[in-house]
């Protein structure tokens, strides 16, 4: 049966990249992926791109194709908020397995930091809220996640210090990753003392807004050397707005991960590397617990105990995640995939993890825990 393989997954540096644009960042990442895969523009016959709030367009995929110089046989954009990166890979996998394309370039990029004012970014993102029932109340994305966080702490007995452990871990990882937006290590006390944004979330519980790009090449052939085979993918969409979310806020992650693992014929216990969406510390806690990695309320303590470290039993977001490598929209979550590919195929260099896991899980979340996409991958060599 046909399958798809990750031939390359690359990101640009994230952070303040003066003079960048959505197209320049997409192009930088795409060129890096082509180079890493040893492929030419003419090899690419499928193109899936994300969206860019700094470059809204009806047809971003073909705008990019023309600019970058490819003429794909199959192309379109995907919009699923933070779930877009994983959703693009899922549809690229379907295009390959159906025979519609053999080499699909999946790409996104955005100058979200330098391309718009902070207020404009906050306001654009606040439109994730309902236009009648939520956004007019002066709610922001951190406020939506803060409502989830307050409920999470109430239900599980976890503390703000437990959540802070996840931020500390992501920063420790980012401190050794070239290209990370935020790399200065900090402590749990620093997180707890950082500026309040929306209780219980402080500044250091929140990801930064960055410029950056990411690209993945998915292929019908494994290519030379080690690569990653997609062995299971699934989605779940339980709601759009927080007001209509289920009581179990991360229910969608439970559904999509169970389905993806079942399709892969694996269990969460088989996974040896974790790539999990982490827009806020509480996002990461809720998702790790919904995936069945951590017991309810225990994700922070697992992090504190070293379980998710490079040298730990289950390395997590070893590039630093959205919380510290940075968040530039769609490509933000593609960095999780780039790191998974690098770690799983022995390309991580000085920051290589201690173990050599055979399987990795990648989970993306869009909206306010609204849209979930899970991919399960297996190392092949």
């Amino acid at each position, binding site marked *: 049966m046909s399958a798809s393989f990750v031939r390359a997954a690359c990101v640009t540096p994230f952070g303040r990249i003066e003079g960048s644009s959505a197209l320049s960042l997409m192009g930088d990442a795409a060129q890096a992926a082509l180079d890493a895969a040893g492929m030419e523009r003419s090899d690419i016959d499928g193109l899936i791109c994300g969206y860019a709030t700094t470059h809204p367009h009806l047809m971003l995929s073909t705008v990019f194709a023309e600019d970058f110089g490819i003429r794909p046989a199959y192309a379109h954009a995907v919009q699923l908020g933070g779930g877009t990166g994983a959703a693009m890979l899922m549809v690229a996998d379907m295009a390959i397995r159906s025979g519609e394309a053999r080499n699909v370039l999946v790409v996104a990029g955005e100058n979200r930091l330098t391309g718009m004012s902070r*207020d404009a970014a*906050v*306001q654009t993102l*606040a439109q994730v*809220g*309902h236009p*009648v*029932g*939520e956004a*007019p*109340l*002066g*709610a*922001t994305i*951190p*406020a939506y996640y*803060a*409502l*989830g*966080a*307050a*409920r999470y702490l*109430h239900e599980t007995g976890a503390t703000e210090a437990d959540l802070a452990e996840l931020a500390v871990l992501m920063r420790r990882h980012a401190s050794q990753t070239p290209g990370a937006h935020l790399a200065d290590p900090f402590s749990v006390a620093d997180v707890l003392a950082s*500026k*309040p*944004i*929306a*209780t*219980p*979330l402080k500044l250091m519980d929140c990801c930064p807004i960055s410029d950056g790009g990411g690209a993945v090449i998915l292929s019908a052939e494994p290519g030379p050397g080690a690569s990653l085979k997609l062995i299971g993918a699934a989605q779940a969409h339980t709601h759009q*707005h*927080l*007001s*209509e979310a289920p009581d179990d806020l991360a229910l969608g992650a439970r559904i999509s991960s169970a389905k993806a693992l079942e399709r892969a014929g694996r269990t969460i216990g088989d996974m040896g590397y974790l790539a999990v969406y982490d827009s806020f510390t509480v996002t990461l806690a809720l998702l790790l617990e919904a995936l069945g990695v951590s017991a309810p309320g225990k994700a922070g303590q697992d992090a504190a105990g070293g379980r998710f470290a490079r040298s730990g039993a289950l390395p997590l977001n070893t590039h630093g995640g959205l919380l510290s490598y940075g968040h530039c929209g769609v490509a933000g979550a593609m960095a999780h995939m780039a790191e998974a590919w690098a770690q799983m195929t022995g390309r991580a260099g000085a920051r290589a993890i201690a173990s050599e896991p055979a399987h990795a899980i990648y989970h993306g979340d869009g909206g306010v825990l609204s849209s979930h996409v899970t991919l399960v991958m297996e190392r092949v060599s």
Partner: protein
Amino acid sequence: MSSGIELQRCRACAKTWAFPRRRCPSCGGEPEAFRASGRATLFSATVVTRAPDETFRALVPYRIALADLEEGPRIMAHLSDEAEIGSPLRGRMERIAGRQIPLFRPA
């Protein structure tokens, strides 16, 4: 006294919800509007100190809550004072930041 908080209810299946819709999200039936009592239970709350715009910057810090109305729907609202999750609230539409917003107080 009415809370002024508008809800919708399906004439066919009695499903009740808060976001304005043209048809019932369960069965497609025709909705009728009605006013909530204003009695609710606190599902979650946050104190916002980073406002989205100039209007709300003048109000920080302010509390935003998810309130479970006794009629069933969960709505987002402002909250006057600190309250424990699970505690009873009473709310009504009030003028905040130049617009009508549901405001709840500990009951």
